[in-house]
């Protein structure tokens, strides 16, 4: 099965691991990620102003390219997923934005939210299935106690993201179980790491990440997993507790026996 794939800026640079392990795992699991051509940066944060159009166009271009290929659009980075999924919802449901974005882009056929945006984790859950994934695991991560760190971008606003229960998600815990490890549920797993605040207000981000890592360690986690390069950076930089943070794709590749190849 072929999917359009939107890697995003950071996966081409500081978060190459997140991308490489995902591609290797996808191939092993029998689906192909076809990187869309000439994709442009999503902007990192969804433009909240209801009068913002130009800042949403890069997402629309990616969405339309997937539509023209008749493929679902797969994302990996939490931020890209968040931005593209919300812009897609605008194009589907907000007349004013759809009208003005299409006026600007002058596509052969106007884009109206037809593409399905799928996060890599959703693909594992909904298309492959965690039971099937479990069967494919050749090196189970037995004995590892892993805390899932969701952060904000994948979960909220839940009406649009529709990723999982925003207050009590379980997709990453189910993923951890499928890899043969033990998930550790801790209260701060869906609290914010500080996001972009860490550029100028470093102490503020540090305090927030300290709460997250202390919460995870306190509940017995040996490590954390994330889908977001900025969460990874903030947790690594800011947290006082020395708890390693991995991209979820790295553990996936390890359990599938692909880590050395990737």
């Amino acid at each position, binding site marked *: 099965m072929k999917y359009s794939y939107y890697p*995003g*800026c*950071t996966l081409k*640079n*500081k*978060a190459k691991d997140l991308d490489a392990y995902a591609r290797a795992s996808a191939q092993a699991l029998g689906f192909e990620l076809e990187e869309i051509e000439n994709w442009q*940066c999503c*902007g*990192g*944060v*969804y*433009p*909240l*102003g*209801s*009068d913002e159009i130009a*800042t949403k166009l890069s997402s629309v271009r990616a969405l339309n390219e997937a539509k023209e290929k008749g493929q679902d659009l797969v994302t990996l*980075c939490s*931020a890209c997923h968040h931005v593209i999924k919300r812009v897609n919802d605008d194009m589907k449901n907000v007349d*004013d934005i759809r009208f003005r974005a299409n006026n600007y882009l002058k596509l052969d056929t106007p884009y109206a939210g037809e593409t399905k945006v799928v996060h890599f984790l959703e693909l594992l859950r909904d298309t492959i299935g965690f039971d099937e994934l479990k069967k494919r695991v050749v090196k189970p991560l037995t004995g590892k106690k892993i805390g899932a760190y969701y952060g*904000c971008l994948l*979960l*909220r*606003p*839940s009406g649009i993201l529709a990723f999982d229960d*925003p207050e009590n998600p379980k997709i990453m815990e189910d993923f951890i179980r499928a890899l043969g490890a033990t998930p550790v549920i801790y209260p701060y797993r869906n*609290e*914010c790491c*500080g*996001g*972009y*605040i*860490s*550029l*100028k*207000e470093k102490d*503020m981000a540090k305090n*927030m990440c300290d709460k997250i890592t202390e919460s995870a360690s306190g509940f017995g986690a040996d490590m954390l997993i994330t889908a*977001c*390069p*900025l969460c*990874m*950076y903030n947790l*690594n*930089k800011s947290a006082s507790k020395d708890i390693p943070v991995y991209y979820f794709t790295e553990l996936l590749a390890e359990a599938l026996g692909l880590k050395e190849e990737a």
Partner: protein
Amino acid sequence: MSMSHGKNQAEQIREISGTNPLKCMKCGKCSATCPAFNEMDIKPHQFVSYVANNNVEELVKSESLWKCLSCFACVERCPRDVKPGKIIDAARQLVVRERGGSYLTADEIPELLDDETPQQLLVSAYRRYKR
């Protein structure tokens, strides 16, 4: 929909945010759940109330504009769907859309970087802090 100069700032904030602050029932859940609450001089529930009362002069000078994380905790948990985070963002937009209103300039960037800084951090901060 371009901003006409005659519109007052409260009206502009309502328009940019696309929200109706009058729906607020003052339960305070937005402020209770805000991870940046301690750093804010004007709290999320107060933001909503100020805009509802067309009293926005203080808001555009507020430090809170630069402390909000857009984490959507307040938006998710608001029982009246007022979207306080969008109201704060709209006030921030009023400021950054003015000439010289940026909270981040290119000159500042080199000092703020380290070897691990992800591109995502820079594009996100630019989007939020600068027009």
